[in-house]
């Protein structure tokens, strides 16, 4: 039996008096491409950060490839790629410095892919030697994605990875996602507000509301209104947007 990439049971997380995650159960199988949807402030970023062990949880258990996030082995960490929401990380380094820095921290690093992506995604030589804080928001985001893809991860967690990209950038990202990531059977979890992108690449969606995953299932089935869990009153939703509004109301 293959070990599940993500397994969360009863995860709880509170900020002062506000409960953000409340007894959340979630499982993601290998090779799944799942979109995480939820209102602003529903806790998608918190969920992803708790999932990867970047934030502490107040209750419950999480297993990433069978290991607890606060004691991940080197091998497991080498299989995980994360694109956080804020893309201006290490903004005093230049792109090349930042990529070299992470290259030293990861055992496997695909130089050819990095070079190809830098070229294809418009980060030219002049930009590569300027501090990251001087790049535009879209360029920073693209760089952040390249950094996460560079070590060929088996689990890719993306937190609104394309929010600052123009349509061409988003199309490039989707192409790379399909070409280099999904084709190799990588598990992908990503949250985005751009639903058309989600409809193209995600096979499953999960809705986060009230600190729990309230609806999860095959996107096509949900759109056909034939989901396993049908939320009260939702029959034949007109589009993913309508379904989103309906479920997260």
């Amino acid at each position, binding site marked *: 039996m293959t070990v599940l990439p993500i397994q969360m049971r009863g995860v709880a997380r509170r900020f002062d008096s506000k409960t953000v995650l409340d007894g959340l159960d979630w499982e993601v199988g290998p090779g799944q491409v799942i979109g995480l949807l939820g209102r602003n402030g529903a806790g998608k970023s918190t969920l992803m*950060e708790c999932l*990867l*062990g*970047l*934030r*502490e949880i107040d209750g419950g258990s999480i297993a990433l490839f069978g290991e607890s996030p*606060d*004691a*991940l*082995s*080197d*091998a497991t*960490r*080498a299989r*995980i790629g*994360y694109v*956080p929401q*804020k893309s201006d*990380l*290490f*903004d*005093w*380094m*230049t792109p090349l*410095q930042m990529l*070299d*820095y*992470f*290259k*030293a*921290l*990861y*055992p496997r690093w695909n130089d050819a892919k990095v070079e190809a992506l830098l070229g294809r995604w418009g980060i030219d030589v002049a930009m590569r030697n300027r501090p990251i*804080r001087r790049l535009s928001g879209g360029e920073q985001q693209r760089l952040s994605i390249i950094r996460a893809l560079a070590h060929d991860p088996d689990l890719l967690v993306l937190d609104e990875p394309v929010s600052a990209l123009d349509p061409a950038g988003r199309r490039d990202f989707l192409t790379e996602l399909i070409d280099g990531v999904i084709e190799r059977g990588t598990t992908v979890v990503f949250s985005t507000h751009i639903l058309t992108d989600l409809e193209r690449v995600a096979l499953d969606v999960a809705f986060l509301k009230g600190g729990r995953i309230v609806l999860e299932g095959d996107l096509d089935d949900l759109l056909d209104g034939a989901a396993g869990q049908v939320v009260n009153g939702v029959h034949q939703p007109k589009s993913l947007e309508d379904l989103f509004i309906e479920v997260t109301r």
Partner: protein
Amino acid sequence: MSPRIALYGLLWRAALAQVHPYAHRIVLWLTPVLSLAAVVLAWKVYGPATAASWGANALCSMTLLTWTWGFLPGAFKLNSPANAQLTPGMRARLLELAMTVWMLCIAGLALANAGSPSDVVLRVVWWMVASLGMALAATGNGAGSVVILAIWPLMGLPSVIPDWAHAMMAHPAFLPLLAALLVAPGLLTIRTIFPRAGDRHWRQLEKRNVWRDTDGLRNREDGRFMRWWQARSLRRASGRRDLGAMLLHGGGPGLQVGGIVLGIAGLGLVGLALVGLMHLGDYSRAAELALEMGWMWSLLPLILFQMHTLMLANLTEKPAGQSLLRLAPAMPATAPRFNRLLASTLLRSSLLAWAMATVTALACSILTGAGGDEVLMVASMCCLALPTMILPLRNHAHRSRYNSVLQWLLGLAIAGVCLLVAVVVRGVLALPVFPIAAVFSVLLVVAMTARRYRSMVRAPFAFPAGRLD
């Protein structure tokens, strides 16, 4: 109260609030208390006239310090390009407020010290220039540091001024004239501090110089040499997979000890060069001047050491993606091992900086001809500056309750405690004060370091995704 005055009050409070939420309240209580304490002390010791002078001095200097380190940085932040250009009258009000407070403080200080005229003139000039220099430095202008470094050793200057200049300065009209002359550069400086949108304003914002960010002496945009040096140290650390050094690189720019070591060494060399020049020029007072300047110059490396430890202590004030390092396979996986790596790296870095500062200070003193007593004094001062070394060893997962200024004061307080103990010991055992204080300081630091190291290793993971407030 006139709306203008109310607006000034609002701007003052808003500017101080940018620096620290309680700054205004602290200053409001501290200033009268300290002034009163100064008055009472002077009254008991000297008499009513001196008491008034001391009180006025205390009041004006506190206000001037608040103006430099509290109001100006905050006002600079308030004066964002959008506000400067679009909010009606705000920049003008800020300029007026800054100029008024500055001139009132300087006038107050001048009146309070109206004892010996010639002394006053020099001091007033020195205060005006120094305060302007500090103002520039506090708001991130590179010129500020230059002005301060230039004016620092000139405190020992009065003895050098020829007699005819003294006579001129004794003339009662001289001071007002000089003050009026210096108002113009003052106005110019203040206008530079508050630019009005445009490219220069954006460039200044980008620079984010070391003095200006009072919440953390980091995030500087360094000059070309420092950038090259940092790139080189980053390359070396990445190449050797030196995890401790890479952690520090991940924490922010300019935290590497190499930079500070270079800075200290540079200071030492500059000091020695100056002294050498003076000797070459066959200046009659060379030895005396060297001695006077020497000890002040030798304290500067210690200040750099303290700045370095303060930067390390506020390593994670501005989250900058260090949480990603938790997912990096090369870094330790569990929180205790990670914290141990961080703690030992921080400790090593601070110790190295302190060692360098001490060596430079001692070398400068010895080479400028200080005697055994002075060298011992310098060594004791170095040991008394050691307590700030414990500051970086804290629970980095939680937001620090004190900003960097308060942390520095904590370090000073520990040194003060050691001095007090040494005074007591002197009363009992008749041993010299400073060396005893130095010994106490070292012992205290060793004990506190061990304790804080252990508690840091037990703390939660030092680089969480969000501060565990």
